[in-house]
């Protein structure tokens, strides 16, 4: 059959049924659009995590209270409070070879007052080595000094957001703020770090760990220890050394009964990566279901179309159309619907992904907009395949109509 004439007939049919074709296409548009959007958002989220790694550095290990298997959730996440990690543990860990810096964390939540301004925020009790561990520096004033590490000095370094909220554009250095009931002297302001999945350091304040323990929290344990290793490659070696050291310090004979967990940043992020991968796949599958639903809609509409055009099919056969001519004619219609629907869906899905990226960026997340050509090709191909698969049954029905009966159809 001549191609140009086929196109003409197709468009004549299309313009007579504009609303119907659009509604049929809608299933395809939504299906393809959501696959594109989900894959883009998923990639963006994963790139966010990747950026986390590079901002922290991949050579970080965390020591968390609570033992058990290495790949289970740490106890602290399940609500139990384990009190066996101490400041001294952190100090001892700092002496292990290949460890460049180490800091314990004793954290809590408090109300911070300055003048008539109140802000509820987290405070982190850390040591002078914290900036080295988390790649987080002061932009004005100073951080906690090494000689203040074991003191309960009431000094505080502000996160950039807190500084802005309490002081606006004014210089906070040398001023006094209240953390709950206690007066603290502001000695420094941290650089802007941006939000991360774990925390937003800009919205936190930093005080010496002993101050946090003794003055603010009334405890003598710490909630977390982090250490920076000189090279990622040494991580397994260092982790082993840390486990041996702490097992010894905590007087634990059976390695299975340790009351702490040591993880490298990589391990933690691998775990998150696995979870987000699975989530992505799951959401993608749901989007794929909507594609199938769209395909069923197309099959439905094509069946109706075939019935409506029974006489036309009879006529075409009478003047020389072969079965395969009729088959191709109707199959082409469903493929074109999915093709155009796919195009619109790609466009719409991409717009949506751009929107999400813009919002994430606005909220301070380090979001990379990734619309992979792979996702476009895949969802487009699937859309066209759906057009073929769900269009073949109606097209076949049309091709096999008996010409004489079709001509008589009312």
């Amino acid at each position: 059959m001549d191609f140009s004439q086929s196109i003409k007939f197709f468009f004549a049919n299309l313009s007579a049924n504009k609303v119907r074709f659009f509604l049929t296409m809608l299933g395809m548009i939504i299906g393809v659009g959501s696959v594109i959007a989900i894959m883009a958002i998923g990639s963006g989220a994963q790139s966010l995590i990747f950026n986390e790694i590079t901002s922290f550095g991949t050579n970080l290990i965390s020591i968390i209270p609570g033992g058990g298997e290495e790949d289970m959730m740490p106890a602290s996440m399940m609500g139990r409070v384990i009190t066996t990690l101490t400041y001294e543990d952190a100090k001892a860990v700092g002496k292990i070879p290949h460890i460049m810096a180490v800091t314990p964390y004793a954290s809590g939540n408090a109300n911070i007052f300055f003048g008539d301004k109140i802000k509820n925020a987290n405070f982190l009790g850390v040591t002078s080595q914290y900036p080295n561990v988390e790649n987080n520096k002061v932009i004005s004033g100073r951080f906690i000094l090494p000689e203040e590490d074991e003191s309960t000095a009431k000094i505080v370094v502000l996160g950039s957001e807190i500084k802005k909220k309490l002081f606006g554009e004014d210089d906070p250095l040398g001023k006094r703020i209240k953390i709950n009931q206690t007066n603290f002297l502001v000695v420094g302001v941290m650089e802007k770090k941006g939000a991360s999945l774990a925390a937003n350091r800009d919205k936190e304040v930093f005080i010496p760990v002993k101050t946090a323990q003794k003055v603010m929290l009334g405890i003598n344990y710490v909630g977390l220890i982090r250490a920076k290793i000189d090279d990622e490659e040494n991580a397994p070696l260092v982790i082993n050394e840390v486990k041996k050291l702490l097992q010894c310090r905590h007087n634990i004979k059976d390695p299975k009964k340790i009351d702490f967990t040591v993880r490298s940043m990589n391990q933690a992020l691998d775990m998150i990566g696995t979870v987000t991968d699975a989530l992505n796949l799951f959401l993608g599958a749901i989007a794929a279901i909507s594609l199938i639903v769209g395909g069923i809609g197309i099959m439905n509409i094509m069946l109706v179309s075939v019935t409506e055009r029974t006489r036309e099919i009879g006529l075409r056969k009478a003047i020389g159309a072969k079965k395969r001519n009729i088959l191709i004619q109707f199959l082409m219609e469903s493929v074109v619907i999915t093709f155009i629907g796919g195009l619109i869906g790609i466009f719409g899905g991409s717009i949506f992904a751009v929107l999400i990226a813009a919002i994430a960026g606005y909220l301070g997340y380090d979001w990379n907009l990734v619309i992979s050509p792979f996702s476009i090709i895949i969802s487009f191909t699937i859309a066209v395949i759906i057009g073929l698969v769900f269009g073949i049954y109606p097209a076949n029905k049309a091709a096999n109509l008996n010409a004489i009966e079709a001509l008589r159809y009312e």
Partner: protein
Amino acid sequence: MSIPLISLKNITKDYKTGEVTTNVLKGISFEINDGEFVAVMGASGSGKSTLMYILGFLDTPTSGKYYFEGCDTSKLDDDRLAEFRSEKVGFIFQAYNLLQRTSVLDNVLLPATYLHKCNLKKAKDNAIKLLKRVGLGYRLNHRPNQLSGGEQQRVAIVRALINNPRLVLADEPTGNLDSHSGEEIMEILQNLNEEGRTVVMVTHEEYTAECARRILHIKDGMIFKDSIINHRRLAANGEFRK
């Protein structure tokens, strides 16, 4: 001696609907030569439409032989039959059967697009020429719903002629038309026949059949009379001429 265009030998046709078998054609034999104008006349249910479908390769006989241009068509498969319909036969239907959403020109070109070797440019030129001949040269881009019944049937006639078929088959061509338009159509068919076109027309009206040169009378699936018309009625002026 030239072989006849059409040669039917003992054609029967049975239809099976569920458990019931109906014998529609019960042994039909005749020959039609090039250039004849034959009317197949019979009452409703006589089998005349079925006979026409078999002649036009839309259906195959249950038994018997159908020779077209000397070739045995009973062995042909679906695709070959479709090719025959495309190249050898032109159909004209009682209800015109034009595609509503397409122009007159594209309607006429439709059979050309199904040709094995489709030459659209040549077909288009031919179409325009033929449409002008039937007086529709200025209606090329109109839709069927903008035309009268008689005009639509004229478009259908041009469509039937576009591939230069050996045989023109008309199924009650004037059935949906008033007498004036009907006569116009019969005039065109007679002119085509005068030029050498073989025309086979199915009708139940004596008045229409009189325009042909030969009448095959069919009843209960059998030909009971095959009469030559010595003086046929000219649709153009109503006169009776040889």
